[in-house]
Every structure is written in C-alpha cells, then in structure tokens.
C-alpha cells in the first residue's frame, strides 16, 4: 500500500481502518440495508478518507470525521435509489401517542433473527431516526458529537432520540 496523499504511513492507515471499519460498515449496512452496497460504501468511505486525510483539521475525532464521510456517502446513495419516506417527522405525533413499551425489554428469541428484524425495523423508520439510533448506539460518540453529525443540538438529539426509541420499539414488535 502506498503512503496516503496526507502522508499517512500504510501501517497508520491500516490502524485507522482496523479501529473504525466495524463502526463504518455497520452504519452503512443498516442505513442502506444491503450487504453488498454496504461493502462498497465502506470501501469508498475509507478510500475518500485516505485521499482527504490532509484536509482533516483535528477539530473532530477521526471517528466523527469518518462518520461524516460515511453519512454523506450513504445519503447520496439512497437519494439516488429512491425517495420513499415511510415515516417522516410529521409522524412524530403518531409515535408520541403510540403504545410502544419503551420501558419494557425488547425480546428476541434467537440471535440469528435479530439482524433481519433490526433491518426491517430500521427500514420502517425515517432516515433521521434511523441515523440517530445508529449513531447513539456507538458508545464512542457523545450527544454533542451525534448532534454535530446530524445538525442538531444535544438537547434536540435527546428529544428526538426519545421518539426514535418509541418508533423503533413499536415497529420491532411488529416484526415478531
């Protein structure tokens, strides 16, 4: 592997990939809902990062910077495929009044069915809720960092996260 345009040695870029590939691949997989597209997207995201590392200013963590590249990439892909929105922000009231048991455990009988049910559930959510849940699930990100990635304040993230959890729980039960 060549040295990156930003002067990153192969071993350093390899380390960057090793530390972040799971997070980026999982985001792409669950956001796009297709393993092959997620694989392509992950490759493209890290290639972009490799090419643009000299533009990284250190204002955010590398993980956050990679997420921003991944989010832009995945959103562009999705916009290219379709613009269906099964649920939008206008549906918030529906979920506020839903009987979703967000305080009760979400139960799955077998681990192997989990991925399929999660994908179905996320597919039924708005892009905003889907992205929010996927980012908040990364324990390395603070609410501030999640907010910066989705263009919201940390307080707005907390508020929307509450509704996103309700929507997720309601849809998840339907996938049983």
């Amino acid at each position: 592997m060549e040295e990156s345009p930003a002067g990153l040695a192969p071993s350093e870029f390899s380390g960057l990939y090793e530390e972040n590939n799971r997070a980026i691949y999982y985001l792409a997989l669950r956001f796009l809902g297709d393993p092959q597209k997620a694989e392509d997207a992950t490759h493209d995201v890290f290639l972009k990062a490799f090419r643009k590392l000299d533009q990284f200013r250190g204002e955010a963590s590398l993980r956050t910077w990679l997420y921003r590249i991944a989010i832009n990439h995945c959103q562009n892909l999705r916009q290219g495929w379709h613009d269906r929105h099964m649920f939008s922000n206008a549906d918030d009231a529906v979920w506020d009044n839903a009987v979703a048991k967000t305080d009760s455990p979400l139960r799955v009988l077998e681990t192997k069915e989990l991925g399929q049910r999660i994908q179905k559930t996320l597919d039924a959510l708005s892009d905003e809720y889907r992205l929010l849940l996927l980012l908040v699930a990364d324990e390395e990100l603070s609410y501030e960092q999640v907010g910066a990635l989705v263009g919201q304040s940390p307080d707005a993230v907390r508020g929307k996260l509450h509704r996103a959890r309700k929507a997720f729980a309601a849809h998840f039960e339907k996938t049983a």
Partner: protein
Amino acid sequence: MKHQNKLSQEQQQSRQVGTEQQSQASGAREFASAEEMLRYDAAHTPVPPDIAERLQKSTGDLPRPKTAWWKRLFGGDHR
C-alpha cells in the same frame, strides 16, 4: 469520559435493571433499549475481509504525499 457521560445520563439506570439477559430456559435475549440491541448486533456482524483487500489495491495507485497530516496537526516532525 464522553461515553461515561452519555451512559450516565440515560442508560445507566436501564443497565442496572439487568440488560441483554439471556434466558437459559428459552434462549431469549432481552435488551433494554434500541441502542443496546444495535450495539449487540454490530458486535456480531462481521466485516467482510474483501474490503481491506480492495482498499489495499485501490490505494496502490494514488499519488505521493504533499504534506503529512500529522505535520499539519502538530506542526513538526514527530516521527
């Protein structure tokens, strides 16, 4: 620290309840929140090894560097 802050704000309580429990009898797995379920799913979702191989090939043809990213960040040679 950030991680701890986020957990302490909203998730610590639910963790204390006893989450991601696997019932010995039914094989059922329980999660207290959507995020916890997603974390579990992410941890059990393998990353295709092809990606690393493709990246190695893709980066092979790129031009040589101009300025090292770490020099831009730290302003000197730290190697």
